[in-house]
């Protein structure tokens, strides 16, 4: 993996060989105040480093952070969430359109102080019992909520990626949510006078996603239902991507494929099966049976705690490998 230190070293060697370093030092020093330019630019972060999932979480997810573990049904980063729970992170503001089982587990484990979301159910099954227990009964502790519609959340991620302070939409017309959420406001079109809904852009401290694969430079490919993950990564200060595999050549299937270049990602961890019981298109299917079974596990606090002890607290990222499959059609 080519991190920024390697790059700087490489540049120094090449320039010295060319006998131009003294001249260039003058020229670039003036413009960058003695620091490598790219480190001081808004929105440009460290280059992707390949590391273990434990190290990636430890280095990037801190108590009190706002975090988005994204993935719209597909490519949900379960392994990264489990590692975050194991490392005992607290007071997180959890951002996600569909909290899903992944946030039911993090909320039940006591990681969250606030949830920003737009649809909080177990898809096709029913309630998220741990989320409900937190909202209705304050267990394991009180959970603040900031609730939006899907359209507003999707637009807010999009605005974050576009470095805008807010998103606007033709939304919430006749709905009650603006009455209870002060973060839903309005903006007036300066040409037509139409009043549109406005919500703040989402700019997480950290976004965490799962993707099919990365190449050795750290470029990442997403394929299939790509949700808001590209936007989540581009909107965040830091980002972690878990992948099924690292390959020599990324070979995106189309010139217009969804790619995140290595200079948009902080850390990459190889975690085969890391989206289970969600799925990675081309690798393994969604475990709908596990989603159905979760209802009974999460309904009762003790059953939930026992399951978490056995499956998360006593586990490790490598456990997910048993759900992985070789890529369909790969050599």
């Amino acid at each position, binding site marked *: 993996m080519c991190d920024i230190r390697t790059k700087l070293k490489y540049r120094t060697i090449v320039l010295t060989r060319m006998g131009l370093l003294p001249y260039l030092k003058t020229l670039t020093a003036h413009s960058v105040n003695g620091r490598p330019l790219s480190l001081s630019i808004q929105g440009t972060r460290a280059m992707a480093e390949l590391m273990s999932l434990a190290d990636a979480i430890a280095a990037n997810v801190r108590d009190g952070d706002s975090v988005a573990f994204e993935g*719209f*049904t*597909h490519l949900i980063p379960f392994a990264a969430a489990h590692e975050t729970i194991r490392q005992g992170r607290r007071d997180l503001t959890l951002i996600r*359109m*569909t909290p899903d089982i992944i946030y039911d587990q993090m909320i039940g484990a006591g990681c969250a102080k606030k949830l920003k*979301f*737009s*649809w*909080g*159910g177990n*898809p*096709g*099954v029913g*309630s*998220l019992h741990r*989320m*409900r227990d937190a*909202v*209705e009964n304050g267990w394991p502790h009180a959970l603040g909520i900031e*609730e939006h*519609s*899907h*359209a507003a959340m*999707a*637009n807010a*991620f*999009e605005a974050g990626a576009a470095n805008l302070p807010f998103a606007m*939409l*033709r*939304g*919430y*017309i*006749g*709905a*009650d*949510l603006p009455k*209870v959420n002060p973060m839903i406001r309005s903006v007036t079109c300066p040409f037509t006078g*139409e009043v549109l809904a406005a919500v703040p852009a989402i700019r997480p401290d950290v976004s965490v996603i799962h993707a099919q694969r990365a190449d050795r430079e750290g470029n990442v490919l997403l394929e*299939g*239902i*790509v*949700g*808001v993950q*590209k*936007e989540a990564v581009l909107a965040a200060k830091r980002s972690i991507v878990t992948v099924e595999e690292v390959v020599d050549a990324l070979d995106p299937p189309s010139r217009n494929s*969804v790619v995140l270049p290595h200079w948009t990602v902080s850390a990459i961890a190889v975690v085969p099966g890391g989206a289970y019981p969600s*799925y990675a*298109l081309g690798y393994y*299917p*969604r*475990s*709908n*049976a*596990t*989603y*159905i079974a979760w209802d009974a596990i999460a309904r009762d606090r003790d059953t939930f705690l026992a399951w978490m002890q056995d499956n998360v607290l006593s586990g490790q990222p490598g456990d997910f490998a048993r759900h992985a499959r070789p890529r369909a059609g790969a050599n």
Partner: protein
Amino acid sequence: MTGTFTPTEMMTIAAARTLTNDDICFVGIGAPSAACNVARLTHAPKITLIYESGTIATKPDVLPLSIGDGELCETALFTVSVPEMFRYWLQGGRITTGFLGGAQIDRFANLNTTVVGDYAHPKVRLPGGGGAPEIASNCGRILITMAMGTRAFVEKLPFITSMGHGEGGDHRARLGLKTKGPTAVITDLCVMQPDPVTKELAVVSIHPGVARETVAAACGWALKFAETVTETPAPTPEELSVLRDIQARTRNAHKAA
């Protein structure tokens, strides 16, 4: 086989019949997904189905459990990001028909899927709106499927998650909406449609074997009936077998994984 069908089957098939080949349909999970795919596999083979996960013109062989099962993407013409789905396709005015359901509905087809009780201290915290608030305003028309019952069909909603006809009459137009809003509520007992002027729901057809009194008793407000109330045609053998086949395939698929 006709003559023995469940109320839910009747509801799903009645909903399927409201769809045509021309529909570009924003599909929700559950009864809407079943209805849309029954329509596709019977009288509307060219219907375009869109799920909010970004899958456009999808033709699943089994019903998805979630809104983003791999089956949807693998059988779609193409798949877009979720921001694009909500911006270009839903808000863009491309969807003719949106399907909604909810925990509660009122006489003007407004829906609640957010909370029972006070929002800040809810008695029951429901999943929330998801795509519903903007589906309700941006689709050409809205179809609603819900099983009847006095806890679901209520006099007053504690929370309006998505607007139907609001306070009735021209409320939608007054808010600047150009879309039709709910044009039918298809239940397990009957089909309702809003009055052209007042927009209050009225029963237009009752499913076979259901008494008018049963319908009225399952509603939490004084339910109106249209001047002419017909009997909903019973499911045809073809409709029933298509629905039961896809549900059997679905059960097997979801158990397996």
